[in-house]
């Protein structure tokens, strides 16, 4: 995955901060933010995740033009269950998020234009009582700003479960 232009915009930061219950004015009040050491609106710590908005191929967003979408419409799923998903249906074998790690090098500010490149990391398997065989895979994303500086390194670990996780 590569994202060529991740526009960090103040209104997007405001919406993101609201969604994670964060009323801190550093995320929405330019007048307040200007008077701080940071000098302007910054992005909350997990904001880099919303780079998905700028990935043209991101698979968890319905695409314009009717490529089909696996969520419910007239039927419970807009997609047929995949063959390798076992007996529990189409969705159970989808990936879940197991771990996420961020390293912050330079604060991300409203107005930044970031690029992101992702490389695969390690992968491993584990048996679990709650969800059968688990297949873990790691990916490492480097975010750089308009000056080419590394601002965030993000490491995600995804897991494919054999069946829906027992709670």
């Amino acid at each position, binding site marked *: 995955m590569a994202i060529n232009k991740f526009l960090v915009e103040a209104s*997007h930061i405001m*919406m*993101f901060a*609201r*969604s*994670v*219950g*964060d009323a*801190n004015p*550093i995320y929405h009040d330019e007048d307040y933010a200007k008077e*701080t*050491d*940071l000098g302007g609106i*910054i992005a*909350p*710590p*997990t904001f880099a*995740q*919303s*780079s*998905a*908005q700028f990935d043209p191929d*991101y698979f*968890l*967003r*319905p695409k314009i033009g009717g490529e089909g979408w*696996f*969520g*419910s419409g007239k039927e*419970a*799923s807009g997609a047929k*269950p995949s063959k390798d998903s076992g007996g*529990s*249906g*189409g*969705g*159970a074998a*989808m990936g*879940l*998020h*197991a*771990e*996420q*790690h*961020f*390293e*912050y090098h330079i*604060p991300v500010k409203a107005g930044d234009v970031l690029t992101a490149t992702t490389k695969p990391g390690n992968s491993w398997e584990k048996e679990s009582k709650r969800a059968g065989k688990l297949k873990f895979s790691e990916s490492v994303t480097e975010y750089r700003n308009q000056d080419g500086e590394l601002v965030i390194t993000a*490491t995600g670990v995804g897991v494919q479960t054999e*069946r*829906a*996780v027992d*709670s």
Partner: protein
Amino acid sequence: MLKENEIKVGDTHTAVLVEDLKRTQIVQYAGASGDYNPLHTDEIFTTQVAGYPSVFAHGMLSMGLTGTMLTDYVGDGALKKYGVRFTNQVWPGDTLTGKATIIEIREEDGSKVIDLMIETTNQNDISVITGNATATIEA
């Protein structure tokens, strides 16, 4: 930003992150983050096709809510590292409490930092997130 002479190893900060989590907040996070996985927003798909009892929160929503607690404690722009494991799913109706504990005060690259252990639990005291963070402090 925290000041070195005002903190010690073992200090904790806790905050209620969300009470009675609403499906609408999960939808709000889907819209802001761009992750529209129906497992989080589409009850019909999630129960009838995926086999879960209901939609559930994005792991990243739990991490984001926990991050709010964390930056409220360490200050803006102070985080150097923040990492979590998603240990249990978060469901609509859950009430989450986040806790950060200072486990070390040390120097890194010529500045003072603290290492924090993080845990977020639900109303049944079951851990939904465990993790670590490192933040810059004022010497």
